[in-house]
């Protein structure tokens, strides 16, 4: 005879429910996996960081040694030699560019100055800005001779701003004068070919020389 399903088959009671307990057990297991997994990762990370730190320290030590060796290879005396040589070359070039050669002026003056005009004093000076000036005094045979000299300077162009002053007519009709002018840099620059210096003496005489006094060197025509 079949029992109705509502009547229990045994007097031993069944467990209340097996599913919730299994769920709780699974959750604990997952948390354990997660925790151990995190611990494993962190431990591996720590080992990696430790190793990386050691590698970097070793690399830094090696590079420090390399730098020290490179520093030892730098010879300060050699560096100083190079610096001095560079300075010497550059300064020499600069100074040589401004090196004056007044022999070029004298050679040019001998060539262009009329024989009827002579200087008794002459002062050449180079300014700090690379310019040069000439100042002097002299005697010309006549006004025409002085005009010819002025014309020659103007035409030549290298003796610039020539100003004749203190012009006085002497008893013998000669004309004494003073001159101031500036020189073209090409006239006294070193390295620029200048006309060969003549052996004829520059017609200079004493500042207060009379025409007779000048005859000792180059007599006025």
């Amino acid at each position, binding site marked *: 005879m079949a029992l109705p399903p509502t009547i229990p088959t045994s007097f031993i009671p069944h467990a209340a429910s097996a599913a919730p307990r299994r769920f709780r057990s699974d959750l*604990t*297991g997952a*948390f*354990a996996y*997660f*925790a151990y997994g*995190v*611990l494993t*990762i*962190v*431990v591996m*990370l*720590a080992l990696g*960081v430790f190793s*990386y*730190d050691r590698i*970097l*320290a070793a*690399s*830094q030590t090696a*590079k*420090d040694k*390399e*730098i020290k060796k*490179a520093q030892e*290879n*730098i010879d300060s005396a050699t560096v100083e030699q*190079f610096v*001095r*040589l560079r*300075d*010497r070359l*550059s*300064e*020499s070039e600069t*100074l*040589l560019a*401004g090196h*004056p*050669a*007044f*022999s070029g002026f004298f050679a040019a003056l001998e060539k262009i100055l009329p024989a009827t005009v002579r*200087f*008794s004093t002459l*002062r*050449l*000076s*180079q300014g*700090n800005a690379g310019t040069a000036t000439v100042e002097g005094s002299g005697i010309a045979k006549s006004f025409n001779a002085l005009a010819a000299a002025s014309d020659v300077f103007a035409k030549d162009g290298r003796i610039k701003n020539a100003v004749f002053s203190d012009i006085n007519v002497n008893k013998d009709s000669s004309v004494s004068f003073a001159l101031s002018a500036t020189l073209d840099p090409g006239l006294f620059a*070193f390295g620029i070919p200048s006309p060969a*210096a003549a*052996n004829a*003496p*520059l017609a*200079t005489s004493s*500042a207060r*020389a009379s025409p007779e*006094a000048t005859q*000792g*060197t180059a007599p006025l025509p």
Partner: protein
Amino acid sequence: MNNRILPTLALVVAVGIFFAYVNPTWSGSIAAAKVQIDDDNKALEAARDYEKRQHELASARNAIDPADLTRLVVFLPDSVDNVGLILDLNALTARSGLSLASIDVSADTVSGAGAPASEGLPSSEMDLAGSIDLSLSAIGTYAALQTFLAGVERSARLLDVREIVVNGSDTGVYTYQMTLRLYWLR
């Protein structure tokens, strides 16, 4: 209950390791070491560049004739040595036919060679060379002056004629006052 304690402890240990060692080490000593290594690499690169440049300069210097280098040192010496120069000038005047009357160092010494001190251009380039002026007076013919001037202008040591004053005489023997500027590398 015990099943939960150990994982929790593991998690706590993991967090502790991370914050007590991994993170401080990464952002501390490792970061500093990386920066230091970068600096070292730059320094080593500079050292390699220096070595390369040194070899280039040495090659360039070796390509210059040693005699030319010697001439360059004579041209712009390391010291003033005005006494030696005065002796040389004395010899030059004698060879030229001039009679040296006096020679002396001018009182005002120019410090910068590239430009006058009065122009007031303070530049290290200009202070590389020092200069002083020598004033001398001599007597002689115009031909002797020409020879002397040519000798000074082509002197092995750089000498600039800054000023010449010529005064004539009745005899064809003139009086000259000159100012010469000599240079040296500081």
